């Protein structure tokens, strides 16, 4: 009996550790920000409550936060699905951007008479383009063991280059200045959920994708297999799981999700494609995935946290003399500590291998 009690206590401690691990980056970030605020002579508690106010204070502000969280739902899932399988895909940013351009292209280039068909067509093209985009480094990794970190990171620059050229050349809008495509047809726009705010139907699609991801990882053979591959490739191979197949599969799904995110952003938020389409959603998505430990619920909270910081950051400085940099510091510190957590896990694994 004492053994059972000990096991129970151990499990309790384990759970507690897990919980602390999840909120630890956030608490550490608040501490660092407090330090900075104290140095410049501000009361950290007042500032934090102001930020919280700006992020969640009214239905409007909540809508703004969720609107800012929307792209992160997609990029978080797109990153997590690869990280879980031990594939360090850092190319979600690029896939998000090419997908966005694909959807915008459908939105303005196809005849508006297509009406309701425009939205699904836009999403489909975006998903296809981005899936293809990430399938390339996936294939290179699976077939030739070319480091995915390098190939996907480099592809991000290629994505920026190609889309930058297109929106300044062939796809440049004739009406507005430069760096943007024409606006999409009204029928291609996603519905706004709470009209004055920019929160749009893409948020719901994001929630759906998140739920589908949560289902996929636990309840499909491929999802279970990808986790085994992430745990131990040699083991996975020896029990008959195809490593190349799994790598390509998660990269393609990651591409599809990135593309859907780009489409949601283009059709729901900007209503066009513009240079600087993504202020680093793909990279914030990595922080979200790390922070959320690749779980669906974790990604939801991670997205909302970063969404809140983004939406509060833009307005906090309008109404107070708090520099915007404080919010950036919090954001940056959360990311750093989330990555530290990842490093700790990686180190632990390496030790275990020895």
């Amino acid at each position, binding site marked *: 009996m004492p053994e059972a009690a*000990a*096991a129970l206590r151990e*499990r309790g401690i384990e759970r507690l550790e897990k919980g602390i691990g999840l909120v630890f980056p956030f608490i550490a970030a608040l501490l660092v920000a407090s330090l900075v605020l104290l140095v410049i002579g501000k009361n950290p508690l007042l500032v934090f409550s102001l930020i919280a106010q700006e992020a969640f204070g009214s239905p409007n502000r909540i809508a703004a936060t969720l609107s800012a969280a929307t792209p992160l739902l997609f990029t978080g899932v797109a990153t997590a699905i690869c990280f879980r399988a031990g594939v360090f895909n850092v190319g979600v940013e690029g896939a998000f951007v090419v997908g966005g351009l694909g959807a915008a292209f459908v939105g303005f280039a196809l005849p508006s008479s297509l009406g309701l068909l425009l939205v699904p067509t836009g999403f489909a093209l975006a998903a296809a383009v981005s899936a293809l985009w990430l399938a390339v480094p996936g294939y290179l990794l699976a077939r030739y063991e070319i480091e995915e970190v390098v190939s996907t990171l480099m592809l991000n620059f290629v994505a920026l280059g190609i889309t930058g050229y297109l929106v300044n050349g062939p796809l440049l809008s004739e009406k507005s200045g430069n760096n943007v495509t024409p606006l999409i047809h009204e029928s291609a726009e996603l519905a706004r959920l709470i009209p004055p705010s920019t929160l749009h139907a893409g948020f719901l699609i994001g929630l759906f994708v998140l739920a589908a991801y949560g289902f996929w990882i*636990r*309840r*499909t*053979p491929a*999802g*279970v*297999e990808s*986790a*085994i591959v992430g*745990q*131990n490739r*040699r*083991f*996975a*191979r*020896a*029990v*008959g*799981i*195809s490593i190349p197949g799994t790598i390509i599969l998660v990269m393609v799904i990651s591409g599809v999700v990135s593309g859907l995110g780009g489409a949601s952003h283009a059709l729901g938020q900007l209503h066009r494609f513009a240079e600087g389409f993504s202020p680093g959603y793909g990279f914030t998505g990595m922080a979200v995935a790390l922070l959320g430990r690749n779980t669906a619920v974790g990604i939801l909270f991670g997205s909302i946290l970063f969404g809140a910081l983004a939406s509060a950051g833009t307005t906090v400085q309008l109404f107070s003399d708090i520099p915007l940099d404080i919010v950036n510091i919090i954001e940056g510190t959360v990311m750093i500590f989330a990555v530290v957590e990842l490093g700790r896990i990686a180190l632990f*694994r390496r030790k*275990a*291998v020895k």
Partner: protein
Amino acid sequence: MDRERGDGASVRLGAVGLCKAYGSVQANRNVSLAVKPQEIHAIVGENGAGKSTLMRLLQGVEQPDAGEIIVDDAPCRMSSPRQAFASGIGMIHQEFMLAPDLTLLENLVLGDEPVAGPLARIDWNAARDSGGAHAAQAGIEVDWDRKAGTTPVHIQQYVEIIRLLRRGTRVLIMDEPTSVLAPKQVEDLFDLLRKLRGAGTTVLFISHKLKEVMALADRVTVMRRGEVAFTSSVDDSTVSEVAHHVVGGLDLGRRTPTTRKSSSRAVEEPALEVAGLYAPAIDRSHPLNGIDMFVRAGEIVGLAGVSGNGQSELVECLVGLRKPSSGQILLGGMDITYATNRQRRDEGLGYVSADRRHEGLALDASIEINAIAGSQRRKPIQRGKIVNLGAMRRTAADRLTKLDVRFGSLRDAVRSLSGGNQQRTVFARETATDPTLLVVSQPTRGVDLRGIAAIHAILHSIRAKGASILLVSEELEEIIELSDRIYVIADGRIVGEASSGIADVAILGQMMLTGTAQDA
């Protein structure tokens, strides 16, 4: 000079009432030990009996909670490994600690280089001379310019011994020194140790193999559950008496191999046929140079050989983890030479990997996942296109209880299980799908005596169901005990075949070492 220290002492290295606890586990309880000068003393016990803890205490790696360590009749506080080393206590670990990319000579002097001249340059000639002198004294030859990584293991072991002797070690502690050696090499090592004993060195060694203990040691101490269960002069005890104490009075009931039920079905098509198989090498071991062999249905076939003669390559080719360059593999008459691992599994192949920690299990994954991996697309776990979580849990629990794996929760990492339970988990997974051929590599490596008995029982029960087993093991005794037929592999070829009835350790060992068939 060092040799003279402590002359006339009656106890060279000893312990009185050592206690050490890790958390709630009492790893050593009131352990007393007395190793006389120039004695070869064996410590025997199951995994977890407290042998390693005792060694760590004697070496100063850890401090005892109570009790004393004795060196040359005087109590001695071992506060660090360095201090133990200065007192003349040196340890050779189970995994050799030589730097693979340095030459043997560099390894010999590493950390204690002889220097000469005003710039204190390393005096390689002096190093070579001192190494040579020690080697000559021990009656062995060492090619000092060879890289340690490309040197055969038994030579590496010699170098480790000489390295310690050169630095004044008077008590040599060895952890399972014979686990990597072929029978002939074991003999040579024993000769060397006896010679060292004659020259004044004291040896304390840990072993699982009672026959070796009885052959080499002067005294034997048995540890069990953290305590000294038995100690005796070897001349005054027998193998069965010592074995009795190792397992704690439990009768292992050594089974005589069951009579071969397979003979009635011998006319059937073989379960496995390999013809002219060639394959490239892993690391520096030998490639396969045309393997021809077969395994009948309901037969356990042993593959004996000194490690690194193509066993790993053959196993990987058989289970589909390596592409042969030519040749043919038939599983139940079906050509699977280039089939994937999954296709082979669907045709009835099971695989117990030699590398339990990295290939047989995903240590950080849950016990549940480790028990069902590979079956995630089979019924009842997959229903429609969906994984049925309840069925997954039940399947895992079923498989584990069938093989008597003791675990806390299915969600615990498999790492938390003991070695024997981990290996049973592998068997639970690999036998659950009723394979027609089970390829089993080193099934009892790192498993304690009772665990070994359990695994042997599992292998017998698999055969009793009519399945075939290819057993690859470095434990010759294990192969002889379990196999119906034995192949000997050397240099990537099958060099001999024997039926278990006439198999003789000496003959098999000679085939393994010389690579030529002997007239049995």
